[in-house]
């Protein structure tokens, strides 16, 4: 007798800390990363506590050096609109800023893992995304933002902390919900330096990242089924991968491998460079006009539609996994710290874990803790870890078969009920119908005919709805029966069928632009502006014509470097042809109108002649 191998997992009698230890992830960082998961206590001890008041002034509540985990969680009165926040780096003078930046350079030189940008992000987008990027950068001047020297000082301070005792910490929590056992690994970083360190979207003090592992119990063992990583721009089911999905999920024994984005610390399943795009907020009317234009472009003009909006700024999240690796059997091991609803700093501190930069779109404001959103409301990933990865609708595998059988039986019963109901109602409908037919031709029965007509119409609609339900149920039942057969035969669903949008690194082949393209990407916008100045200065009469020629030349020149000449020349030609059509129509509207009318007349005559001859 052959016995099937036991599924991966650990005995269900394991304690929560043992459970967390058994599945703790391996996190692979990108070379050049300066911040790693740390314990909150060391961080808090080096912070000060502040309160932002709605009248736009900041008050220091507890100074640096006096802050402890105990006084952090003390209840405090604060008015509506105020924001409680920690401050890791105090405001720096010019001299301190310069010193911090110089120290960071020294630190980078001594780092084991250095960062190389590789292909510039600006070379990965066209001219319009570069313009959008310039606008996005300009908005940072208006929005609240974290100064670059703060990132440098944070890196230096963090490095000093690590020198005092190198530790890599996760804050682990075990939750039991809906038949699942969920291991949550919360990673706390002192700083997110994606913008200042890796040309990304934002910088902020403190950063929280999350990895969830979903287990079910079978034969007195806890078996891993799903893994979900927090990531940019992805939500729900797209965040999770099944344990046996080897196309995406890498495992080291029972430990899922996470590839952390450089500076952003976003988690990815596969190593690579991910293109994150920040769309420019466009007013609704302009968006509608653009959609109408896109429809005209593809439907009326028969052109290929563009999959991406040009109004986006391209950013790269480098999750190369070529730097420090932390986890079981790796260069560095984890120090676990268990948390739950009774952990005071988790529940009692609702403020931000770093600087409140007063950024209205929050990109540069520090996040709140694992349990709360920035506004102090409960964070869904804490109270609803199943919903976080859209697992709330899925039962654990051992319950699936039983649940499906019950559902099938319910649906079969409903179909039988519908069969009887439809037969009965259809018969009544025919009886009423024949009565209605019999009333016709009898003017004295007009009122009864109208009343019965309404009754018949209502009944017909009901019968139609019942038949529709029956027909739809057949389809559902068919699907459920096939799934039931698959489950009974021990066959599983496609592990990727739930994924709508998967985060995929940009393939290297798509990024092999020449050096010229890179230089061009960096210089083109400036060249355009210099060209404009030159035109206005040296040929003011022909400046507009010059601008048009300059723009077309820039766009076509760039398309040659980016190997998109065919697409670009086609677009430019069609736009010019449309402008030319308008000019021609304006100048020759009479001949065009007469020609169209004569052509229509000829067509109609031809049609009539054909009818006569037919």
């Amino acid at each position, binding site marked *: 007798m052959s016995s099937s191998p036991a599924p991966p997992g650990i005995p269900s009698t394991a304690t929560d800390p043992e459970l967390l230890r058994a599945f703790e992830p391996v996190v692979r960082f990108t070379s050049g990363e300066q911040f790693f998961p740390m314990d909150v206590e060391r961080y808090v001890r080096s912070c000060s506590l502040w309160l932002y008041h709605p009248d736009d002034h900041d008050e220091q509540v507890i100074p640096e050096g006096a802050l402890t985990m105990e006084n952090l969680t003390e209840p405090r009165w604060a008015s509506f609109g105020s924001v409680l926040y920690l401050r890791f780096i105090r405001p720096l003078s010019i001299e301190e800023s310069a010193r911090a930046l110089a120290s960071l350079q020294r630190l980078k030189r001594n780092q084991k893992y250095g960062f190389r940008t590789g292909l510039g992000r600006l070379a990965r987008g066209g001219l319009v995304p570069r313009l959008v990027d310039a606008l996005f950068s300009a908005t940072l001047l208006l929005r609240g933002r974290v100064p670059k020297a703060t990132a440098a000082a944070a890196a230096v301070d963090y490095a000093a902390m690590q020198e005092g005792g190198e530790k890599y910490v996760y804050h682990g929590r075990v939750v039991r919900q809906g038949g699942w056992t969920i291991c949550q690994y919360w990673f706390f970083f002192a700083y997110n330096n994606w913008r200042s360190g890796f040309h990304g979207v934002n910088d902020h003090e403190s950063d929280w990242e999350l990895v969830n592992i979903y287990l079910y119990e079978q034969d007195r063992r806890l078996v891993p089924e799903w893994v979900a990583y927090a990531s940019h721009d992805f939500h729900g089911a797209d965040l999770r991968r099944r344990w046996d999905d080897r196309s995406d999920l890498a495992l080291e024994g029972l430990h899922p491998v996470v590839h952390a984005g450089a500076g952003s610390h976003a988690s990815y399943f596969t190593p690579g460079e991910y293109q994150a795009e920040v769309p420019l907020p466009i007013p609704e009317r302009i968006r509608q006009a653009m959609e109408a234009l896109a429809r005209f472009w593809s439907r009326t003009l*028969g052109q290929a539609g563009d999959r991406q909006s040009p109004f986006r700024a391209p950013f790269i999240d480098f999750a190369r996994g070529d730097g420090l690796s932390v986890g079981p059997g790796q260069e560095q091991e984890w120090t676990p710290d268990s948390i739950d609803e009774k952990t005071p700093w988790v529940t009692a501190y609702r403020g931000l874990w770093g600087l409140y930069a007063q950024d209205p779109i929050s990109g540069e404001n520090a996040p709140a803790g694992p349990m709360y959103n920035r506004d102090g409301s409960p964070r869904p990933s804490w109270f609803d870890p199943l919903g976080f990865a859209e697992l709330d609708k899925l039962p654990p595998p051992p319950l699936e078969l039983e649940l499906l059988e019950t559902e099938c039986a319910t649906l079969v019963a409903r179909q039988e009920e519908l069969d009887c109901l439809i037969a009965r109602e259809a018969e009544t409908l025919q009886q009423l119908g024949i009565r209605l037919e019999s009333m016709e031709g009898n003017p004295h029965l007009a009122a009864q005919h109208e009343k019965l007509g309404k009754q018949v119409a209502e009944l017909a609609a009901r019968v139609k709805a019942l038949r529709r339900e029956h027909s739809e149920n057949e389809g559902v039942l068919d699907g459920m029966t096939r799934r039931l057969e698959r489950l009974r035969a021990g066959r599983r669903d496609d592990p990727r069928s739930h994924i709508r949008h998967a985060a995929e690194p940009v393939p290297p082949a798509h990024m092999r632009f020449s050096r010229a393209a890179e230089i061009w990407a960096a210089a083109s916008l400036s060249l355009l502006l210099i060209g404009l100045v030159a035109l206005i200065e040296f040929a003011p009469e022909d400046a507009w014509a010059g601008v048009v020629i300059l723009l*077309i030349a820039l766009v*076509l020149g760039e398309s040659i470097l980016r190997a998109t000449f065919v697409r670009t020349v*086609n677009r430019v030609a*069609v736009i010019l*042809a449309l402008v030319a059509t308008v*000019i021609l129509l304006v100048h020759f509207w009479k001949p065009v109108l007469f020609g169209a009318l004569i052509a229509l007349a000829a067509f109609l005559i031809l049609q009539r002649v054909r009818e006569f001859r037919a």
Partner: protein
Amino acid sequence: MTFVAVLAVGYAVYSLVYGILAVQSGDEDRLADGILHLVLAPGALTAGVGAFWLRPWAWALFMTWAVIGLTNQILRSLFFEDPDYLDMAINTFAVLALSPLEVQIAFGVRHTENVQLSRATRNPLDRH
């Protein structure tokens, strides 16, 4: 596409004849224009012949030509009030004939796997 090809060949012949006549006339004002037409004629002829055979380079040559021609004529119309409407109309026609997706696929400058060709259904049976 045949019509576009014929148009190009016709334009080549016209340019050639115009160029020769302009150069032979000895008129200095027309000399530069005549030389330009003589230079353009072989290009138009090549594009026309290539279009007969649905060559991708012929499509690219045509469109580049049209972009230059249309830019020239539009700017002359908007800023200098001296457009050649016939040239503008020919280029517009060529662009509208060559730019639809199906034509690009026929010329081999686009590949079917990269584009969505499906249209919304017009079958009334599909609407219910």
